[in-house]
């Protein structure tokens, strides 16, 4: 890292990466899937900061603890797998989850409901498909099997269309349940299912951070320096409880920001953000 400029502010992407990294415990086995550069960077950041004993399984290549020279635009690239200590097969990775060894997985959705159920399969009802989404990969299985799930989305902010309607990302209802949270499609509590894992414990968004309360309902835990409870309420398709000690989320340290910029020189992670969100900066001294 040769940059000598003093880092005085971070971007929204860097803040989100840091918030995702904070959900990763040291000493666990964690896996990032594909199509998720914010998460890929967060895992490498966690391993280089508070979680040196993290067992990092790379998405798509199933390499263990690789040291990528730079983040590539697609996940199954040799660069993402460089210097991996060993490799799993597809069945071994999923077996690790099924047997209770996968500590954390990261999932997102085009619709995320209050219980952390998510849809990445299709919009529309059983009779009429209006939008085919790419699909969930192994998310359906891992949402049940991984011990914990970090949910993230960079599209919490939903602007109204010309008729004033919003297509909420954090939505009242999922048209299709691809991955499970704390209540099933039939309304059963997660405890009624024979899943291995305990379900999602946070949602990191472009507007703030949610946890889940005792009932398994999303609960706002933190805003960002430029967001408020009102703004988050306006952009969320369901009513939600707020933590008693609602905070402003912590910003990453300058060394962490330096690492992110070094690791992602092509700024691949910004492709997850809207054009407007790419212009959001946070002054490190202000918080």
């Amino acid at each position, binding site marked *: 890292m040769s940059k000598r400029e003093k880092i005085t502010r971070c971007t929204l992407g860097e803040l989100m990466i840091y918030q995702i990294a904070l959900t990763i415990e040291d000493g666990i086995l964690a896996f990032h899937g594909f199509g998720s550069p914010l998460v890929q960077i967060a895992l490498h950041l966690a391993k280089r900061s508070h979680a040196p004993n993290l067992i990092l399984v790379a998405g*798509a290549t199933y390499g263990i603890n690789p040291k990528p020279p730079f983040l590539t635009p697609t996940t*199954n690239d040799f660069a993402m797998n460089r210097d991996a200590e060993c490799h799993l097969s597809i069945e071994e990775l999923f077996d690790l*989850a099924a047997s209770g060894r996968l500590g954390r997985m990261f999932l997102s959705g085009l619709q995320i409901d209050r219980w952390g159920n998510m849809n990445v399969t299709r919009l529309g009802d059983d009779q009429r498909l209006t939008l085919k989404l790419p*699909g969930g990969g192994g998310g*359906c299985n891992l949402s049940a099997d991984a011990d914990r799930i970090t949910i993230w989305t960079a599209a919490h902010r939903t602007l109204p269309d010309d008729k004033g309607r919003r297509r909420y990302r954090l939505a009242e209802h999922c048209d299709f349940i691809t991955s499970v949270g704390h209540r099933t499609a039939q309304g059963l509590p997660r405890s009624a299912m024979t899943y291995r894992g305990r379900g999602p414990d946070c949602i990191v968004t472009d507007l703030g951070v949610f946890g889940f309360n005792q009932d398994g309902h999303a609960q706002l835990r933190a805003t960002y320096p430029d967001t408020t409870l009102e703004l988050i309420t306006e952009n969320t398709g369901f009513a939600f409880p707020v933590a008693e000690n609602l905070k402003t989320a912590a910003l990453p340290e300058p060394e962490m920001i330096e690492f992110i910029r070094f690791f992602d020189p092509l700024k691949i992670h910004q492709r997850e953000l809207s054009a407007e969100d790419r212009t959001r900066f946070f002054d490190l001294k202000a918080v």
Partner: protein
Amino acid sequence: MPIYPETDKRCSLISLVSHVRTGDCIAIGGGLSWREPMAALRELIRQGVKDLKLVGSAHGIDVDLLCGAGCVAISAESYVGFEQDFGMALNYRRACETGVVKVEDNCCYTMVQQLRAAIQGLPFMPVRSVQGTDFIKLHPEFKTMVCPFTGETLVLVPALKPDIALLHVHYADSQGNLHIDGPPVADILFAKAAAKVIVTAEQIISPEELAQLGVTIPYFYVTALSEAPYGAHPTACYPRYAYDRDHTATYYQAAKKGADYFQENYLKPFVQDCPDQASYLTMVGGEAKLSRLAQWRESQEQWQRLYE
């Protein structure tokens, strides 16, 4: 399940692909932008095979191309897209949304368990997951049962035996022993579960050289094979060549302009009007392009430049 003891499985790309019949269930190897059997898929389009059912884990341009060419009736993939690079797979979306392709999305581990059942000669395998999701509605063939040992409710997923596993590998010998460098993704499972395994290889080498490299998939699973250098282009086949992001952008922009535009400006010039892999390689830029894709290993700057 059949075995293939023949000592010489080599054939032309045309003969190789003629193993695929209309209506077949195909498992395509590779994953995302890595080692897709693209040369064979282009030949499959030229041969006019229709009504395919596709099964797989995480895929992109391979499935999208077949959808754009009207070869697919059912998709049971778990992901079809271009990740954060280009986003949604547009031909695939169109085909699903117009009802041309029936959506039977699956999930990676569910498919792994289904393949394992086939490989082990069992009728099904259980999973804990899937229950509580809408995949149960999409797959009425999945059943639930109470485990007689623990009393837990589990989901049973039936054996999956694809008619064809279609793979692209780095090296093969003439008998069909295969060597894959880097992640095999689901290729090994596909090869063991499918009735027929048809393979393109970057290079066919001697059995001694192949043994030195190591056998990823033994010959007796393999039905037929054909040498197809750069057979994964525009996806990667590291260490020989990186992902061709430029060509993928050309592809994506053509798909974005609609089905007719895609037909005239991608399928016609790059698939239908190229009778073989050699003419395709000339069409996408020839030697200059191919050597550029091999330069990834010279320096990190060169590697990054491919992706800018």
